[in-house]
């Protein structure tokens, strides 16, 4: 049993890799078998992630310091590859597994039949996400980024159609350029420090001087820039709205965690480099400014747009902006609440992306755009015929009531109104910011944060109030949609998870505060990685 637990950190990477590869070998007709493998793999990832969550909290005494190190090649750090699990990565892994499972179940209703290799690509995307959260090595971070991006290129095109292909083209071009930036920065950092291991890097970066220091800072700045592109920070996020809003519903849902990978990487590397005098993009002022601009851009975009799927994409931007702004504040007081906000906002936008598609079925094209705009821009129906109408399924009674209730819940969650977890998240974020303002000598930043978050919330209320009234109270022609349990279920489960998050806010925030505190003590992480012994030397050769 102990053996199985020791190898736990590799499961979130190995399981989707094996499942995805196995599904490639199956003929396209064996849909049920593929769906079964996909579901099984996602369930296994969830189980592994929850196990890691418990282990990182110190359960069983496997990792007393809360940091677990796994050496896949059995070479000691910094020479071999390391996977590192701490509370933050375990939380992100669990979030990925939950969202992945929900999106996968939703896709079984019909999306997985609209293109080839959906299930394999989906598993590879999860593998890339899990790997990026686990790796303790800069180059492997790049490799896992590429794995998840390559899978996302396939998924964003899933279902095909003109809108998806031309949005996908831009998405791919931007992300390829960002990957080049990442490579340049990795090469620069390696050239100066001679290491790619994050823990070793944190040790060596502090000892650099003179021109080496300058080169290192240049490398770190480019690195930060690459992560900001992935995180969707303004002005590097113009690809996001078009790409996300044209992706198919389950893909959009699972994409809502992809921008968080950039934020995770900024947080992780920022925390390790902070004691060495974090360079440029990782320094807090920059993150704060970028976050604030992103937040404002998202709020304005939310008010300006009228299509629901674009509104949700702007919500993803607002969420990224709020997180960057909060993480850009000095100290760790805001980090715990920010992580809680991350959990809540990812679950919400995931549910929202799936809900949109169900809502779209109730309406004929154009009902979601103000009549004036329709005339002004002379719009045609851009949707491919695979979009709605031809769905057959068991009609759930009171489908409209479910849609309305789900929409209201999502809107409440996004804007941060009580009683759901969105409110708890924003309240704890704001109260931490106010406490920060009262105790700090320069309270201006904290007050700006409070004002911006509240203003973005107000923009959300206005935008979704307007959209909701048009959808549910308008006089347009409307058909009562047929919903399947497969489709309504995941949306309901994600929203119920947010309810559970609100109910269990105490223990969850305690865990996240612990995660934030351990980020403030990078020495724990560094010691754990550098002192990890290969298994064969433990056996005494």
């Amino acid at each position, binding site marked *: 049993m102990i053996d199985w637990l020791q190898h736990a950190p590799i499961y979130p990477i190995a399981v989707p890799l094996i499942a995805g590869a196995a599904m490639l070998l199956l003929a396209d007709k064996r849909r049920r078998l593929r769906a079964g493998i996909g579901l099984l793999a996602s369930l296994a990832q969830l189980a592994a992630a929850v196990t890691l969550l418990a282990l990182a909290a110190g359960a069983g005494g496997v990792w007393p310091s809360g940091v677990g190190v796994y050496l896949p090649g059995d070479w000691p750090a910094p020479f071999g590859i390391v996977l590192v699990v701490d509370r933050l990565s375990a939380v992100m892994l669990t979030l990925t597994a939950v969202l992945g499972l929900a999106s996968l179940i939703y896709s079984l209703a019909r999306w997985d039949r609209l293109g080839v290799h959906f299930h394999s690509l989906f598993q590879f995307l999860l593998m890339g996400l899990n790997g990026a959260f686990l790796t303790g090595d800069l180059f492997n971070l790049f490799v896992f980024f590429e794995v998840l991006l390559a899978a996302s290129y*396939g998924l964003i095109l899933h279902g095909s159609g003109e809108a998806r292909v*031309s949005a996908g083209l831009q998405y791919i071009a931007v992300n390829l350029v960002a990957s080049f930036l990442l490579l340049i920065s990795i*090469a620069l950092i390696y*050239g100066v420090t001679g290491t790619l291991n994050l823990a070793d890097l944190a040790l060596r970066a502090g000892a650099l001087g003179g021109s080496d220091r300058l080169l290192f800072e240049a490398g770190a700045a480019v690195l930060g820039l690459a992560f900001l592109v992935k995180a969707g920070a303004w002005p590097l996020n113009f690809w996001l709205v078009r790409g996300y809003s044209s992706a198919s519903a389950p893909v959009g849902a699972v994409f809502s965690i992809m921008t968080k990978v950039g934020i995770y990487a900024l947080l992780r590397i920022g925390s390790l480099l902070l004691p060495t005098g974090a360079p440029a993009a990782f320094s807090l002022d920059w993150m704060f400014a970028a976050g604030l601009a992103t937040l404002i851009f998202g709020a304005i975009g939310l008010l300006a747009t009228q299509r629901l799927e674009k509104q949700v994409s702007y919500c993803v931007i607002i969420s990224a902006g709020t997180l960057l702004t909060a993480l850009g504040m000095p100290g760790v007081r805001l980090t715990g609440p920010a992580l809680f906000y991350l959990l809540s906002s990812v679950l919400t936008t995931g549910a929202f992306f799936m809900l949109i598609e169900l809502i779209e079925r109730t309406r004929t094209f154009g009902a979601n755009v103000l009549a004036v705009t329709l005339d002004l821009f002379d719009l045609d129906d851009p949707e491919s015929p695979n979009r709605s109408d031809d769905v057959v399924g068991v009609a759930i009674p009171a489908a409209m009531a479910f849609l309305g209730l789900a929409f209201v819940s999502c809107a409440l969650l996004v804007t941060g109104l009580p009683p759901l977890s969105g409110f708890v998240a924003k309240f704890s974020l704001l109260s931490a910011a106010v406490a920060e303002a009262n105790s700090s000598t320069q309270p201006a930043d904290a007050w700006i944060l409070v004002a911006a978050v509240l203003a973005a919330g107000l923009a959300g209320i206005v935008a979704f109030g307007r959209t909701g009234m048009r959808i549910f109270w308008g006089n347009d022609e409307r058909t009562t949609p047929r919903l399947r349990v497969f489709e309504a279920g995941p949306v309901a489960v994600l929203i119920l998870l947010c309810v559970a998050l609100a109910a269990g806010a105490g223990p969850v925030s305690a865990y996240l505060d612990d995660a934030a505190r351990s980020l403030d003590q990078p020495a724990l992480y560094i010691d754990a990685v550098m002192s990890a012994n290969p298994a064969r030397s433990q056996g005494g050769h």
Partner: protein
Amino acid sequence: MELIYAIAIGVLAGSGVWLILRPRTFQVIMGLTLMSYAVNLFIFGMGRLVVGRPPVIDPSITPDPAVLADPLPQALVLTAIVIGFATTALFLVVLLASRGLTGTDHVDGRESES
């Protein structure tokens, strides 16, 4: 040697950036390819430019770092080439699909007004 190497990277990267900013998809993919060449050369250069030193340790002689080249950037560059190659191929497919669906090779999927 360093100067020529640096100029080569600069020219490749500069041409790549210029091409990426062009409105035709074919120009964009050529730009991405040139940029990936520049980046790969850059990674290689970060392992220091030396001539006549093997990157692989010969077990029969005592290893001395002074006579060996750093093998890691060479390994990194191989990985980067493979990944870059695959993503470029994928981009090419999307480019063709976009051309077929929209009937134009403009990056926006439609010709600009002017």
